[in-house]
């Protein structure tokens, strides 16, 4: 093995990867190990690589990522809980050439915002929806979400989610894939380098759908919530693979307007 002096390697001309300048320098307010940070960064990398930074407008939700506009270095609007797809539709209708995306959590998209999600997808608004699904309400302290799994304990399902009184976990992504307005619907993850590479390609594809005016592109990112689930980040990712993936399996659900499931 050749040993090289670090000073020889760490030179500006040898830099092959660093955080995109489409992320601000603000330290992220997310818990250590949370998938939100990775998801933010991938979107911002795609926007930078496509050269559309100056034409992209993002919509931040209510939830842990309400402060997304502190971290994404683009023009952004903060939306009322659940309303991001309507806010995005409003912006896209008056600025049809801009790239508009929403970034939403599971409560935002599938509980209070269910109707706005449904109708933006039904209209086929030419936007990108990024859906970070960690099966819990993180920001407000770990309450049950529409995607909380059966038997999963949260602060409002302390004995485990009971299907009989609380309903089943909602597969919002599969639901909206049924609508003709959605063109590309996929489920990804960001817990391993391989998953990250796939997720980034999916996000890139989603923005290309918008560029090509094909319809709505929807990217679900299944993520850990180590604080809400009360585990370490790595344990939470392992738990996610073991418990969430069987119910929310990563993969393409609809490509080029055709269902894959």
């Amino acid at each position, binding site marked *: 093995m050749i040993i090289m002096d670090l000073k020889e390697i760490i030179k500006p001309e040898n830099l092959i990867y660093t955080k995109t300048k489409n992320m601000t320098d603000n330290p992220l307010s997310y818990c250590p190990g949370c998938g939100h940070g990775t998801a933010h960064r991938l979107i911002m990398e795609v926007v930078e690589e496509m050269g559309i*930074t*100056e*034409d*992209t*407008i993002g*919509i*931040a939700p209510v939830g842990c990522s*309400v*402060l997304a*506009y502190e971290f*994404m*270095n*683009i*023009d*952004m*609007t*903060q*939306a*009322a809980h659940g*309303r991001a797809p*309507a*806010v*995005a*539709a*409003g*912006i896209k*209708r*008056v*600025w049809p050439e*801009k790239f508009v995306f929403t970034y939403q959590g599971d409560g935002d998209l599938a509980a209070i915002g269910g*109707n*706005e999600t*449904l*109708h933006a997808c039904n209209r086929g608004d030419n936007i990108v929806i990024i859906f970070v699904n960690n099966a819990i309400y993180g920001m407000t302290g770990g309450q049950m979400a529409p995607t909380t799994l059966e038997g999963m304990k949260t602060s409002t399902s302390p004995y485990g989610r009971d299907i009989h009184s609380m309903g089943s976990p909602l597969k919002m992504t599969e639901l909206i894939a049924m609508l003709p307005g959605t063109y590309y619907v996929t489920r990804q993850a960001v817990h391993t380098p391989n998953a990250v590479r796939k997720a980034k390609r999916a996000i890139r594809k989603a923005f290309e759908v918008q560029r090509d005016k094909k319809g709505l592109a929807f990217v679900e990112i299944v993520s850990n919530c180590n604080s809400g689930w009360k585990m370490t980040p790595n344990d939470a990712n392992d738990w996610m693979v073991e418990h969430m993936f069987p119910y929310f399996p990563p993969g393409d659900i609809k490509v080029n307007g055709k269902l894959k499931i």
Partner: protein
Amino acid sequence: MGEVKLMKGNEAIAEAAIRAGCDAYFGYPITPQSEIIEYLMLEKPEERTGMVVLQAESEIAAINMVYGAAGAGKKVMTSSSSPGISLKQEGISYIAGAELPAVIVNVVRGGPGLGTIQPSQADYFQATKGGGHGDYRMLVLAPASVQEMADFVDLAFELAFKYRNPVMILSDGVIGQMMEKVVLPEQKPRLTNEEVIEKYGDWATVGKPETRERNIITSLELDPHRQEDHNKKLQAKYRKMEEEEVRYELINADDADYIIVAYGSSARIAQKAMDLAREKGLKVGLLRLITLFPFPKKLISELADRVKGFLAVEMSAGQMIEDVKLAVNGKTKAEHFGRYGGVVHSPEEIVEALEEKLIN
């Protein structure tokens, strides 16, 4: 003189919106104002000026579409009637907190709850005192004719952009549904994208160029001291509105012993009541409110120094009367009269009430 047409109040608002250079209308059907979106859909303003018209999935979605598009610097509006306006309250609070220009039309019907489809003026509190949460105000215009329905759209947009604040046009089922002659305003061209960027690019989400920091539209502030400062800034704005934007019409007040205070269709009926009272030898004047916020506090206070009483006539159980009483501040009588729940009062009833409550 501009184009003259016989139109319904609701239709006049829609036509005036196109002519005001409105960029988009987002709405939802509800009686008695569905004609606004129906007219717009029929007119196809996208072909006339490029104006977007979209029927949203709910009043909530519509106000949030307005919030997004207004935050992007565009001239946008929505309309609804009382129960739908209740749904919009969160969105309106967000628009006020984020300081965005937007126009919201409320064609008031009887309430509370699903209520009736007949006219009412029982949304005065909701319009002028908040309705949504937090310390904010909307500038509120009250048209009393189909002509004013048309004229107030451009005025509302001017004021909305002047103050970066939501402006409400508070109409009622009478004015919305009645037909009158209107002189239509001239077509104002819509701003081009470049013009929007030039005028509002310092705050609106138009896409961040390298040359500036990102624009953020938000009403969230986690630091309470900064939030207090933000609220102080909003309050200063509302004080300025109170100084500069009070609008009213004062009729026969110079020698008046009694003044009827009214707005919208009540004011038209009250004007007839004033005439009837004068025939009876009663010296009655009419203060027709055009802005409900800001309220003509100073004027009423001055009038209170010399008149024997005010009668607030409104189709409600008594909302605007409270602002009259505040302004009168005990100096003289201030009473309320109104039919409500969707019933419209008659001029004779008003005269009778005036005699009973102020004179006897």
